């Protein structure tokens, strides 16, 4: 613990250099904008910004990209409260009570409580990260290929169970992602695979093209498909002096914020789209234990404070599995893993010992980033809200232009843009079929890792599959996976029997 704090102080020294402060600020600002503007979520936002980090050292790059994620969690509340339109999916629950408060002329307190809740939750969750990262990394050092393979399978199944679509549809998307991940060079033998004699495909499918395509272009096309009246939007921008919450607001929100922080932190540690699940769970808990239950559905401030705290806490703790075990449990950490690999950093148990400067600087930057976001969000909420005055008819072409430019700059390749457009069309069709994009992205990013772990396990055991069941951690994870898979079947059977 004391050692971790010492490292953290060292991390602050690195994070507080002028250059890193600037990148932390830039990440937080861009993240807020990504969260505020509908049509661009954190996944596409981070993917678009990856090329801009190529000239930076890995620490500065990660500080900026991490800032985008938690910045988007802050910014997402603005559109939810003012327009009843979630800027990104983790802000859906904020719409319920937040927009009702805005309709009653209390948009200001809703926005400020959302910012305050996010700040408190983000700060506490980062402290939690400091506390458990080291012990968890030490435990993860004992992981071999069978454990990693079992952990990834566990992550896929749990993520599939908790994302929006049905379990079967999500599992199908995971497998499609895994298949796409096999294209290019075989990671073990080095053979050419499914590249159709194309030098472009030899390097595999560019995951940034898939991320921007499915999440950015897919979202833009879905917006274009909306009826014309929805392309017009009206928004009331609150004045600065209206932002202050009353003492009663603060008192009522504080417990909800702390509860939301706890729920969010734990949710970030399990596979799935953590911030989305955390906000939903927090809202349900607040409604269940509400002191003023009649207010729920009509603008209860606890319904804003809890979920907003929860999504930020989850966004922070979701870094733990990524950094410490090297396995991202959700789509945003998955894209951060891709960014880390581009920068030559392999996250995992050895990261803390081999690159302590990078790890602790990023953690320290989260404290700083949360403070920057509080400063950005409270006084400048009217400014961000006024950005919503840009009509969607103008915003969507602008996002499209950024997607084209951003995609080209990854490898300076026009072929990448075509690849992005193909995946944009696929993403749009998949939305129409109610298939989720997140499991596909996770499958694509983790596919090569899973294949290596799987093949190494079989080589170690001389082809004996029982290696996955005889080692306690992997067998435990596979048993938990089986339970997750069979639970819906048992539930359905039990319902039929009754």
């Amino acid at each position: 613990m004391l050692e971790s704090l010492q490292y953290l102080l060292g991390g602050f020294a690195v994070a507080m250099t002028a250059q890193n402060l600037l990148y932390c600020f830039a990440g937080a600002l861009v993240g807020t904008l990504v969260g505020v503007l509908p049509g661009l979520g954190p996944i596409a936002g981070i993917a678009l910004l990856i090329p801009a980090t190529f000239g930076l050292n890995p620490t500065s790059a990660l500080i900026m990209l991490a800032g985008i994620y938690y910045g988007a969690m802050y910014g997402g509340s603005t559109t939810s409260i003012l327009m009843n339109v979630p800027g990104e999916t983790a802000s859906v629950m904020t719409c319920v009570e937040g927009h009702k408060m805005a309709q009653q002329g209390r948009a200001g307190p809703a926005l400020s409580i959302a910012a305050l809740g996010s700040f408190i939750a983000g700060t506490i969750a980062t402290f939690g990260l400091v506390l458990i990262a080291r012990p968890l990394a030490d435990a993860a050092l004992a992981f071999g290929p069978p454990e990693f393979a079992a952990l990834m399978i566990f992550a896929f199944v749990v993520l599939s169970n908790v994302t929006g679509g049905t379990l079967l549809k999500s599992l199908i998307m995971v497998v499609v992602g895994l298949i796409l991940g096999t294209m290019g060079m075989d990671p073990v033998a080095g053979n050419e695979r499914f590249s159709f004699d194309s030098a472009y495909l030899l390097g595999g499918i560019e995951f940034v093209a898939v991320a921007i395509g499915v999440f950015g272009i897919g979202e833009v096309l879905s917006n274009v498909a909306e009826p014309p009246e929805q392309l017009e939007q009206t928004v009331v921008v609150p004045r600065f002096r209206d932002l202050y919450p009353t003492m009663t607001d603060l008192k009522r929100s504080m417990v909800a914020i702390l509860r939301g922080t706890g729920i969010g932190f734990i949710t970030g540690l399990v596979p799935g789209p953590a911030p989305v699940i955390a906000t939903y769970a927090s809202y349900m808990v607040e409604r269940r234990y509400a002191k003023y239950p009649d207010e729920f559905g009509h603008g209860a401030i606890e319904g804003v404070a809890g979920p907003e705290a929860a999504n930020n806490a989850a966004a922070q703790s979701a870094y733990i599995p990524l950094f410490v075990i090297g396995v991202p449990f959700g789509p945003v950490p998955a894209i951060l893993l891709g960014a880390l690999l581009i920068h030559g950093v392999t996250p995992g148990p050895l990261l803390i010992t081999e690159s302590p400067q990078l790890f602790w600087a990023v953690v320290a930057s989260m404290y700083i980033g949360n403070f920057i976001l509080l400063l950005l969000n409270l006084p400048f909420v009217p400014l961000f809200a006024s950005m919503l005055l840009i009509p969607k008819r103008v915003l969507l072409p602008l996002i499209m232009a950024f997607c084209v430019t951003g995609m080209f700059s990854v490898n300076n390749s026009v072929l990448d843009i075509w690849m992005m457009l193909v995946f944009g069309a696929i993403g749009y069709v998949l939305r129409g079929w109610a298939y989720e994009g997140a499991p596909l992205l996770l499958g694509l990013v983790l596919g090569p890792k899973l294949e290596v772990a799987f093949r190494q396990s079989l080589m170690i055991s001389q082809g004996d599959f029982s290696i996955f069941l005889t080692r306690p951690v992997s067998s435990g994870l596979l048993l938990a996976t089986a339970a997750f898979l069979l639970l819906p079947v048992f539930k359905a059977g039990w319902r039929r029997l009754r």
Partner: protein
Amino acid sequence: MTAAVVMFVFGVVTALASLTLPIGTVRAPGSGLFPLALGILLAVLSLAQGVSVYRAQATKARTSTGAPVPPPAKPLSEETRRVLLFAAAVAVAVALLPVIGYGFTILVLMVALLRILGIARWPVVGAVSTATAIACWFVFVRILAIPLPAGLPGF
């Protein structure tokens, strides 16, 4: 059902294509083993999905009264037409990128997309498109020095 069929075909094609690669043995798995397993898994999962959709449709047909009425053939809706036009405009702009260069591509793209999304006033379209093209060119080409295609115009 269409989705399940598409996924099933994708799974089968993957499995068949994997057979052209060295499969190896379980002791020393080859390049084709993992994609082969994934292809088969996808085919099985999408088959299960297809069966579940079919059963749901059959149950719905049984519970609904009267003869099933086939849905009338719809002409392309306004929204679908807009999405197709939007996507086609982007594709044309990307095809033009190496020829007319980045600056003009953004200009053409913005003009087309703004018009498709129903901004009728040409001065507005012209002003927004020109401002975006200049801003993008200045930020990405001049400041960030990204080697975006210059095309025939040279910028």
